[in-house]
């Protein structure tokens, strides 16, 4: 049971006023893959480094496997880590690099050889074991770093943006491979990234961080579909969630959302917010370009961007730009008006002041 418990972690770097992590509490279950995601400077790497033992929190507590490790040095925590820069040792051969953790722990030679061979096999490094890192490509160095991390069989596997130095195609390939490897290992994993696509595709759960705090923590689909804050919706997803100011109006049939002169059918729970301004959050793929219902609005097409599988349309609605995802076969052109349907169940509503999601009850 290598679970991780982080409780009220606060860390402020000397010389800065704003804390890097501000009262963060997360529990990671045994074998879980948790992704910390957020813009740069949000504290995700600091959090990871505190789990690793490379930073000491000002206050709070970290437990791994039930043991309080808050004040233990990194080497006594039984964690392993993949660094963003890979941090593989240039003066050692690939074999010695992978074996480093085992050598330091004085594992018997035969055992080391066997485990290194296994890890190398898993990461397709068998042919490169006797090379120096300088003779490897970026992708191969990345593999060495991962092999070195998994060979020690640590309780906890930490990864700090391990894919960020690879080119786009390689990143996509290795992402899949990494997920497979980690699934097979079953190690508790904490993974830091600023790439929202990586976060959604890898994590069992995703923790979205901003300014040292965890803004939302949940399974990827939940975080994607139901952002708790405007920030989360705007950060996750490509394109990010659209936000459209509106006012709740009541008429005979129920609540409606007034966008300029036009009206949208509102979810029922908005009845309690009569005449209040709200922010509609809606994903590009949840806007219907061939609406049947009468509750549709008209918008002007600004730009068309075919993406192959679909076409991304930027439209102007009441002075705001929205991104709409339409089927690739959809025909229109810039300057034209199109009808857009918003399904009440597929929109999120936010308080324009606090940027928090409105209570749906």
């Amino acid at each position, binding site marked *: 049971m290598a679970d991780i418990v982080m409780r009220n972690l606060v860390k402020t770097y000397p010389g800065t006023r704003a804390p890097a992590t501000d009262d963060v509490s997360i529990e990671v279950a045994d074998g879980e893959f948790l992704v910390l995601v957020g813009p740069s400077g949000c504290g995700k790497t600091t959090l990871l480094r505190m789990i690793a033992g490379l930073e000491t929190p000002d206050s709070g507590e970290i437990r791994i496997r039930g043991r309080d490790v808050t004040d233990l040095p990194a080497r006594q925590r039984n964690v392993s880590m993949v660094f963003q820069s890979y941090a593989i*040792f240039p003066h050692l051969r690939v074999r010695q690099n992978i074996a480093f953790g085992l050598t330091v722990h004085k594992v018997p030679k035969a055992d080391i050889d066997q485990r290194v061979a296994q890890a190398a096999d898993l990461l397709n490094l068998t042919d490169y074991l006797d090379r120096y890192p300088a003779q490897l490509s970026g992708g191969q160095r990345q593999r060495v770093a991962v092999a070195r991390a998994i060979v020690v069989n640590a309780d906890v596997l930490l990864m700090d943006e391990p894919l960020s130095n690879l080119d786009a195609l390689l990143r996509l390939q290795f992402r899949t491979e990494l997920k497979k490897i980690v699934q097979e290992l079953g190690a508790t994993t904490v993974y830091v990234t600023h790439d929202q696509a990586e976060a959604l595709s890898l994590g069992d759960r995703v923790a979205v961080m901003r300014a040292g705090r965890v803004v939302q923590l949940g399974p990827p689909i939940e975080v994607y579909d139901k952002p708790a804050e405007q920030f989360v919706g705007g950060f996750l997803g490509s394109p990010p969630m659209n936000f459209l100011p509106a006012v709740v109006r009541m008429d005979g049939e129920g609540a409606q959302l007034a966008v300029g002169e036009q009206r949208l059918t509102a979810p029922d729970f908005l009845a309690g917010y009569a005449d209040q301004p709200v922010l509609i959050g809606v994903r590009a793929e949840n806007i219907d370009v061939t609406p049947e219902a009468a509750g549709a609005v008209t918008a002007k097409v600004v730009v068309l961007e075919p993406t192959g599988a679909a076409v991304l349309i930027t439209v102007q609605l009441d002075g705001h730009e929205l991104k709409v995802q339409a089927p690739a076969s959809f025909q229109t052109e810039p300057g034209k008006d199109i009808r857009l349907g918003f399904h009440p169940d597929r929109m999120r509503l936010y308080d324009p002041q606090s940027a928090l999601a409105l209570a749906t009850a």
Partner: protein
Amino acid sequence: MTAAARSDEPAAGAPAAPRPGPAPGRNRRRRARRRAVRLQLACLAVTVYMALPIYLIALAALSTRDSLNQFPLPLLPTHFSTETMRSFLSLVGVVPGFTNSLQVGLTTLALSLLIGVPAGYGVARYVFRGRDAYQLFMLLTRALPIVVLSVPLAELFLNVGLYDTLYGVTLLHTALALPTTVLITSAIFVAVPRDHEEAATVFGATPLQAFGRVVLPQALPGIAAAALFTFVTSWNEVLGAAILTLNRRTLPAQVLATLGDSPLPYRFAGGLALVLPALLFVALMRKYLLSMWSSTLR
């Protein structure tokens, strides 16, 4: 570079074929060649400038005494003889001076690495109060002429009983070499990524193991450079050694003291005896300077 080289390939394939109009590719190639030749010439000039005096000294030291008086002076080793060298080495104080120099040089090297490497590491890795002032302060020892330092030092050493000992000279040389040792090694330690140390500790190494297994091997070329510099500094230092000792002279001090009014051949022999060990040391350290594993440093 690759793009330019590729565009030149057709021109290289058919160099004799006459081309209509100007051939920009060939012109560029000629310019590149001319630049390469000029670079080679410059390298040659620097090498000759450095090597010629050494050659002349060696020639004079290894020729018969008569041949030195010939006119014009033969520039090739036609009158080879070890006689001058042999009589120089048999001179009183030369062999002891040589061993003294070696001893002082090596002890200085060990001492300055022992103190300077940790200091360089500290300056490179830790932010502490007064770090900048500390670095500046170290350089100040080099700002004072050795003569100015030596006289008060001689008085001090006389009082504490260190005068005319190799230990005193070693201390002076260590003090002179330390600033550069600290600065060179700190620059090297800065170049070793902190990530590497952190990775080592995450994988179970103690701070000392991380230093020994990961940082030190990567810093070796720089440390070798610092060692080289230290040894040569100590080997070449004359004034301080001459002032601080009477009977236990280092070789330069001995040469300075006794050969001032010796015949010319002896001076050449002394010069060669001084140059050779330093050259030898540079040659030994060379492979560490041209890094062992990294192709980027070459």
